[in-house]
């Protein structure tokens, strides 16, 4: 087996492990602090789940989304979307993730605030897990 083939195989195994480690992702979006930011200098959207920490940064196939992954626990601890403005115009997945992330991080002031956050957390976790699985 070539080195490239070994690395591809290891990468696939790694992402399977990441999927398994993130079955609780929606719950973590609901329970942990979520920080979002948009860096206007390089048009990058950043979401941090929990406290900022050292992490791996993995690109997700078919999109221009990066997920930050704790190298020990393999938990997803963040999202980065470069070129956000362009992506919002041409990538419906990015748009969906961005919208859900905003709701999770900053719920609106309304009587049913818990439900939208819960739904957005589920949707965000589902979208990310699908991208990791792709």
């Amino acid at each position: 087996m070539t080195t490239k083939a070994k690395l591809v195989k290891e990468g696939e195994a790694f992402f399977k492990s990441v999927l398994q480690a993130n079955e609780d992702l929606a719950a973590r979006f609901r329970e942990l602090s979520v920080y979002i930011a948009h860096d206007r200098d390089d048009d990058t959207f950043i979401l941090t789940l929990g406290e900022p920490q050292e992490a791996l940064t993995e690109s997700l196939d078919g999109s221009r989304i990066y997920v930050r992954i704790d190298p020990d626990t393999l938990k997803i601890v963040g999202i980065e979307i470069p070129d956000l403005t362009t992506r919002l115009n041409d990538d419906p997945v990015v748009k969906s993730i961005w919208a859900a992330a905003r709701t999770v991080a900053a719920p609106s002031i309304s009587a049913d605030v818990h439900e939208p956050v819960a739904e957005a957390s589920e949707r965000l976790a589902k979208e990310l897990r699908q991208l990791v699985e792709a």
Partner: protein
Amino acid sequence: MFESRPAASSAKDGHCWSKRIAHRHSESMSCDFEVEDYAGRPIRLEHTNWEKHQSRHPEVGPYHDAIPLALADPHLVMDLGDQRHYYLLGIGTGKLKNAALRVVVGSDNGVIRTVHFSRRLDFRRGVIELDRLQQVNR
């Protein structure tokens, strides 16, 4: 998993210190540099961009001096059209031991856009511009 490359040095506490690639401006140290990649193309790291990425990706701080090496002697380069991804394996230590250093460079201006560590080499986007993975000691 990857054999460490002794050529890689690291910056203490994430601050630039190498006189080879860093420049002093007044009392502060700047981390900007310009180097040629393996194909002779000029690549530039801007100080403000590095400072930004240190806060976004604190794990790359100690690897500032490995960035020129990743550009000049990468194991893999993927061309994604508007950007190129340079991968250098065997440079990470500790939690990052099995990860590759990935430097993302804008194709239009040669400016480094981001630097991070990744476990998966992403072959499914773009085309392989350079493949030296056989040189990786595993």
